[in-house]
């Protein structure tokens, strides 16, 4: 075993963090708070996944215009996540379908998962933070 590998093993453990988003963006503060915690977590070089289920899929819709309600449109921030090495975004297929949406309606590239895939992905995490 090389010295380099030994160093890597003794370093801080990278944990798998999953953020579960199940609320629409502007009716409550959950979606924005989740995004802020995601960005904080990213600075600690952890393995971060974001999942969007139920009304959480509305967070990723293209074309959000919030000027009329006086709240900052934070949806462009999802496009910036890539710059923080957060590239694991997963969306629940059934939640999209029930809302008449498809992947093409979303403002970032995502992986669409079925029920079983989502359940298995959750079970693989070290930490799940729910919003």
């Amino acid at each position, binding site marked *: 075993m090389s010295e380099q590998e030994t160093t890597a093993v003794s370093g801080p453990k990278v944990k798998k963090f999953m953020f*579960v988003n*199940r609320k629409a963006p502007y009716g409550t503060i959950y979606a924005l708070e989740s995004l802020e915690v995601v960005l904080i977590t990213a600075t600690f070089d952890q393995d971060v996944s974001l999942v969007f*289920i*139920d009304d959480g899929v509305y967070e990723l819709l293209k074309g959000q215009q919030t000027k009329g309600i006086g709240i900052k449109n934070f949806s462009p921030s999802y496009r910036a996540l890539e710059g923080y090495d957060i590239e694991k975004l997963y969306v*629940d297929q*059934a*939640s999209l379908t029930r809302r008449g949406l498809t992947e093409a309606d979303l403002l970032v590239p995502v992986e669409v998962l079925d*029920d*079983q895939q*989502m*359940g*298995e992905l*959750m*079970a*693989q*995490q*070290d*930490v*799940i933070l*729910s*919003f």
Partner: protein
Amino acid sequence: MLHIINKSPFDTNALDTCLRMAQPGHALLLIEDGVYAATQGSAVAQRMRDVGGKLSLFVLQPDLEARGMNGKQLDGITLVDYAGFVDLVEKYDTSQSWL
């Protein structure tokens, strides 16, 4: 993994979504208003009986008692106290609270 639900099944879709995604061998703990899903005669009772075969089902007894539902829980659901809640969180590697 452990799924935790604290909302009434008649108020939010948390139970529905959880049951869609929970995999065989996972556990489900009902707390706070989530305990109503554990009671006999409700519209979700049959659904809970059906998932009993693949999930381990638990309900927090103090919350059941507070709501006048003690003794009305479905068969096959294990009652736990606060220490039992902690034991479940410790036993399963991952927990998800379906807020």
